[in-house]
């Protein structure tokens, strides 16, 4: 379904030291399911990406040195992105684990500017136990807030260690910093890869839900997440669709698929990650797909299928 979009999807993973970025990246690699994921690590603290995983996924990890930010033209990011784009064959997905203090928008804007890249989203990893102290720290507070504010999805780690009331406070604080960004409590094994990386063909979604081949965690995805899909002769006005996408249920994490436009306006590719929504026009002769075909995943209890039906059907 993705074959007309040749752009290389890029996900930025941001978060302060110790928040759990590397654990998240390893989780994504472990469940990559045959996708070739290239990982760029912009952190020289402790590089703990599991090399075995990378080899088994036929992917690649590059360390991104910070180099000299006062001459950003010569920066490592430039070379790493060029290198990823020039690889034959290109990886299926690019993950950038930004440094603990990086401003993720510097990376995500590059992906938005470059025609051969597609910003899939920015995922902030937030440590429930340490976050408030970090925000209050005059030296790193602004960096930490900036990371969260840039996020489309916020993955909250160590939430099981925090009192319920404290956790609620944290979520309110996060929502203030990043209105609209979707928040996920995660003990890592519990975040399905389709939430983090998307890209699953709709037909496979159900089949894949239990297809994790590597289980070092309780597989209770289905208790937490809910899938919804629609397929048929549904047509949309471009403007209306845009405003639909701006008013999705708060629990919707990802939405993806093909839509038909009214009249002869052809087909569009819709991709929503958290609060980020993108509509791309597709060429008329598109891989045999004729009809609207959308699939979503969200948090149970915060996304009602009936609401989505009402919006799209």
């Amino acid at each position, binding site marked *: 379904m993705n074959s007309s979009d040749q752009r290389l999807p890029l996900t930025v993973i941001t978060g302060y030291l110790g928040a759990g970025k590397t654990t998240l990246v390893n989780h994504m690699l472990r469940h990559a399911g045959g996708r070739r994921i290239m990982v760029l690590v912009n952190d020289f603290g402790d590089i703990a990406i599991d090399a075995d995983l990378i080899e088994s996924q036929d992917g690649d990890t590059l360390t991104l040195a910070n180099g000299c930010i006062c001459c950003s033209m010569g920066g490592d990011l*430039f070379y790493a992105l060029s290198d990823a784009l020039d690889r034959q064959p290109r990886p299926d997905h690019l993950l950038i684990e930004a440094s603990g203090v990086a401003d993720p928008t510097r990376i995500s804007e590059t992906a938005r*500017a470059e025609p051969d890249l597609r910003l899939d989203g920015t995922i902030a990893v937030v440590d429930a136990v340490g976050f408030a102290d970090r925000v209050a720290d005059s030296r790193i507070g602004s960096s930490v807030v900036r990371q969260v504010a840039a996020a489309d999805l916020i993955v909250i780690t160590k939430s099981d260690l925090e009192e319920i009331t404290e956790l609620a406070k944290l979520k309110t604080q996060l929502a203030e910093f990043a209105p609209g960004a979707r928040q996920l409590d995660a003990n890592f094994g519990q975040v399905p890869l389709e939430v983090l990386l998307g890209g699953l063909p709709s037909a496979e979604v159900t089949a894949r839900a239990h297809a994790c081949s590597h289980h070092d965690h309780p597989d209770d995805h289905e208790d937490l997440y809910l899938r919804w899909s629609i397929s048929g002769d549904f047509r949309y006005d471009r403007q209306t669709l845009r405003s639909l996408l701006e008013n999705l249920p708060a629990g919707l994490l990802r939405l993806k698929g093909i839509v038909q436009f009214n009249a002869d306006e052809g087909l569009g590719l819709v991709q929503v990650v958290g609060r980020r929504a993108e509509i791309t026009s597709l060429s008329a002769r598109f891989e045999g797909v004729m009809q609207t075909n959308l699939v979503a995943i969200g948090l149970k209890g915060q996304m009602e299928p009936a609401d989505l039906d009402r919006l799209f059907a």
Partner: protein
Amino acid sequence: MQTVVYAARKIITMVPNRPEATHVAVRDGRVLAVGSLEEVSGWTSSDGGEQRLDETFADKVLLPGFVEGHAHMMAGGIWQFTYVGFEDRISPEGMLWEGLKDIDAVTQRLRQIESELAPGVPLIAWGFDPIFLTAHRLNRFDLDEVTRDRPIAVIHSNFHLMTVNSNALDLAEFDRNTDVMGVDRGEDGEPTGELQEMAAMFPVMRRLKIDIRSLARTDGGIRAYGKVCHRSGVTTATDLINDLPIEDVELIAAITGEEDYPARLVPVLNAHTAPADEIAAQALKLREMSTEKLRLGSIKIITDGSIQGFTARMRWPGYYKGPDHGIWNIPPEQLMTAVETLNAAGVHMHIHVNGDEASEVTIECVAQALTKNPNPDHRHVLQHCQLADAAQFRKIRNLGLCVNLFANHIYYFGDKHYELTVGPERAERIDACATALSEGVPLAIHSDAPVTPMGPLFTAWCAVNRVTPSGRVLGAAECISVEEALRAVTLGPAYTLHLDHEIGSIEVGKKADFTVLEDDPLAVDPMVIKDIGVWGTVLGGRLQPIS
């Protein structure tokens, strides 16, 4: 045993007992004696060796060879692009490129270069400085007048911006629908052609194959850097961040090892590419690969951004006007680990700090590291250190740190700092050379070439006069004397590089590295020291006139 005695109009030595002399005797590439002809001739009369009197410098003034303590190798290779800056500049090959005083002059030069290019080749220019050309902002229409048939990119002097023509915008698929940070758009909604920062520049650079890093890594780039140093009278220059893979080290060693390579180089290892313990091991290994003209073993850490980009880390009350985009390039707690690990391993560090919070945090890290692992004579250097106040300088002194202040910055960015970034009071203490000296901090000053042009006389002029393009004297109390400024471009930086026992003064036993000037900087009006001609240099006793 051949001894050559050079007679000069004046020799400025940096040695207190005889700060000035008329003759210097050189043997085996080293200074044998400095003083009067009679004094320096004593050696040959006692050991019976041959002595030749050389009058080449009879009307010249000799100084210890200038040491550029913070510059970058790409200052050489950048000349493969067309220079379109405001000031006259001489290319490494000796060609004069006249400064361009308005946008018409810029487009005229581009048109001339364009007419000589093969079809399809992009036209890339550098050094454009909008600070000086204020009539209107350079835009795609100006560049479209040059041509629309090939892409044009004009890189601004600060390397954070470029202006491109419509052809280049089309290649990058930038149009009125582009909503990307840094892609500047006019009132009509169309891109103006100005692209700000990495994100906006990336698609153009990728398609035009503008590869900044390789400018510093090729045979030609390394040679061109030597020529840039030579033309500005520099005999020892740093390359203040380099990944230094082994094949690059071998290439630099081979090229600098040639007899006629005109300078000694001090490339400094980028500490951001691996964990600190691995960097320490790499640095210690590199140290062993040093030669007479290539010194290795130091590392560089970058902590924050730049003041003019609002990305330096500032203490309260922050930026004066404009948003605070202060960024750490490394989290403070990782900086602590890195500084501690590298200091414990005995590795010499250059640490880039611009804002006063960056200097504050770094001072704390060094204090902790030194408490754990005392390291006498470490000479770690705070690079730039532009906004440190007197209290920070006292801590810096107490810890045995050195500073290398960015004196050229006073001229190039001083007005902007006064009016916009940090406000009048803190702008006046920017690059506080006098405070550093009065507090007893070892001082060097630098150009950060190619960010500003390499030229130690100009750098000294900035520290002495502190004037800005608007005519303001920025912090008169921070002006230093010409003698002090000359020391800050010779013995001062030599000390920051652990090389002051070999270079930095004209003194018995040291390398015969001299800068040869047409006039005496201690005798002319301090406002014209930047205009004194450079005859050339002497490196290890070898005469190197600028041809």
